[in-house]
């Protein structure tokens, strides 16, 4: 009888008669540290603002054991936003990991290859032409994302599995979608245009559980489902099409399901918070490096995404005194730097 938990080859094994799994020790430590850092950032976000509270007061408020004014600030106003940052960050991280695995390219992130732009244009179209309720915007982002996915697949057909053509086609399509979005905003009524323009930067300002609660719940469920159902198949895709097929995981099916899941994840976040750029690009890569894993690494991507967005949103709230920036502004600024270093390094390796 082997023990429940054991270690070998730098990994931890969990084994019961029905359930078994294995994770490298380094990846496990990296994920735990990332989650701890995310929790610390979240606590800090709940403590700070116009009125400051001590960690003790925040924890008391969370368990429903604080004066009404503390509870109002911490639980009603700050908590929804903090939870949104963590969950949406995890969702974006996983979405990015899915696309990067399918395209076999670190640039194959939804930000770059147009899925985010498609979801965003769909959302802006929904806001300007129909209305800004969550259901309408969600439908708009999902349809926009799926249309772009279909278009990119069609246009990059025959480009092989390298994914390079897909990236190039996506960049072109992205640029076109941005112009469509601008046109929609410019031709809309002023008040509607303002809502759409603010939304299209990506912001967690004014997040509430009533408006975004569904998106948070859906996001968590989708992330768990993708990690449980797809991670093993994706690691086979990393070994090449033929070997994946020979091991019993049809590569075409893996790829199709991964793209659909990725579009859905992006649409969930975009519908609730607008297009928050670059988290999906940076999180998978940073997560994989921290975890020391080869190929696709969904769990580290989720943990890194959660931390990145929690931190970005904290900065967005407190960088300029008395002014809340949209979190999208922060992620674009940080992500732009990341993109430059990525391109320089890939270029040196000769991948691009």
């Amino acid at each position, binding site marked *: 009888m082997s023990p429940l938990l054991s270690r070998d080859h730098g990994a931890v094994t969990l084994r019961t008669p*029905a*359930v078994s799994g294995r994770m490298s020790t380094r990846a496990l430590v990296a994920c735990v540290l990332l989650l701890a850092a995310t929790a610390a950032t979240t606590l800090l976000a709940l403590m700070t603002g116009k009125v400051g509270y001590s960690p003790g007061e925040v924890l008391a408020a969370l368990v429903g054991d604080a004066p009404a004014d503390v509870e109002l600030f911490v639980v009603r106003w700050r908590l929804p936003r903090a939870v949104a940052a963590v969950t949406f960050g995890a969702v974006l991280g996983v979405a990015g990991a899915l696309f990067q695995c399918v395209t076999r390219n670190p640039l194959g992130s939804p930000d770059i290859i147009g899925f985010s732009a498609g979801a965003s244009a769909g959302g802006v179209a929904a806001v300007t032409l129909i209305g800004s309720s969550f259901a309408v915007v969600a439908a708009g982002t999902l349809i926009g994302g799926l249309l772009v996915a279909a278009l990119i697949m069609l246009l990059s057909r025959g480009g092989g599995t390298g994914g390079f053509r897909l990236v190039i086609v996506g960049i072109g399509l992205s640029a076109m979608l941005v112009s469509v979005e601008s046109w929609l905003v410019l031709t809309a009524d002023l008040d509607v245009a303002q809502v759409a323009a603010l939304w299209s930067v990506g912001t967690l300002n004014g997040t509430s559980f009533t408006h975004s609660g569904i998106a948070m719940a859906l996001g968590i469920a989708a992330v768990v489902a993708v990690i449980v159902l797809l991670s093993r198949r994706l690691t086979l895709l990393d070994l090449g099409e033929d*070997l994946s097929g020979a091991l019993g995981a049809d590569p075409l099916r893996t790829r199709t399901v991964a793209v659909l899941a990725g579009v859905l994840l992006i649409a969930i976040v975009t519908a609730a918070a607008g297009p928050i750029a670059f988290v999906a690009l940076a999180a998978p890569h940073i997560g994989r490096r921290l975890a020391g894993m080869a190929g696709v690494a969904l769990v580290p991507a989720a943990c890194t995404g959660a931390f990145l967005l929690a931190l970005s949103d904290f900065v967005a709230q407190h960088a300029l005194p008395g002014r809340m920036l949209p979190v999208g502004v922060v992620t674009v600024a940080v992500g732009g730097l990341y993109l430059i270093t990525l391109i320089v390094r890939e270029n040196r390796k000769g991948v691009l």
Partner: protein
Amino acid sequence: MSQSVPEPSSLRADRITMAYQDRIIGEDLSVDIADGRFTVIIGPNGCGKSTLLRSLSRLLRTRSGTVYLDGKDIHRSRAQDVAGRLGLLPQTAIAPPGITVFDLARRGRYPHQSILSRWSAQDEAAVHRALAQTEMTELADRPVDELSGGQRQRAWVAMVLAQESSILLLDEPTTFLDVAHQISLLDLFAQLNSDEGRTTVAVLHDINHAARYADDIIVMSHGRIVAHGPPVDVLTPELLAEVFGVEAVVIDDPVNGGPHIITRHRTRIPASVAPTREEAP
């Protein structure tokens, strides 16, 4: 060790037509892979060897005809069931940068795993056995991309052995290796085949390696099977001239027995040897 291989499966193709889109590679091809034997496929570049392996392993859907695994149409069986009985090492395998030998071998267990059972005691035992058989236990924690060519190929073999399939298909497993590594790998395949009765099919380029290691040789040319049988019966000067366009003398191998081929000079270049692209699309 012999318990690792389940009862032998039989693999055969019945009048299959193989094609990539509009390009027909081979038509009306039938072949029976003998259970428990070491079969080697030879033939000039572009004759359809890899395509035949892809068809036999369910990767390529045949235009017409049927591939049977254990008497059942391979395309009517679940992919994961097929993978549990038939393993393929393709030429196109990619090692993700930084992956260790152990993690690579571990991925060969996919057909035996499920959503909940991701690393059972059987999985662990099979991976350790595969690493021991390929003499890769010492290197298990090393990244594959830091290994020599011969060691890297052994890591891939460990992965396909961990799959514990009763049939093993190998697409040019010795290409790009120096002669010492070629021989040690072929010795390993021959040993696995004789010790465990694992049906083994390998595409090889070196005719003398085929002659020495194969129980049966399948000779392909222009998408057809032109000969199939023990090396002594198949490897004749006439066949070598017809298929490879070489004039050769066949002698008895003074060291290992069996036929040995000595080429005299090239008589002509058959169409399929002319510098065209490789056979895979």
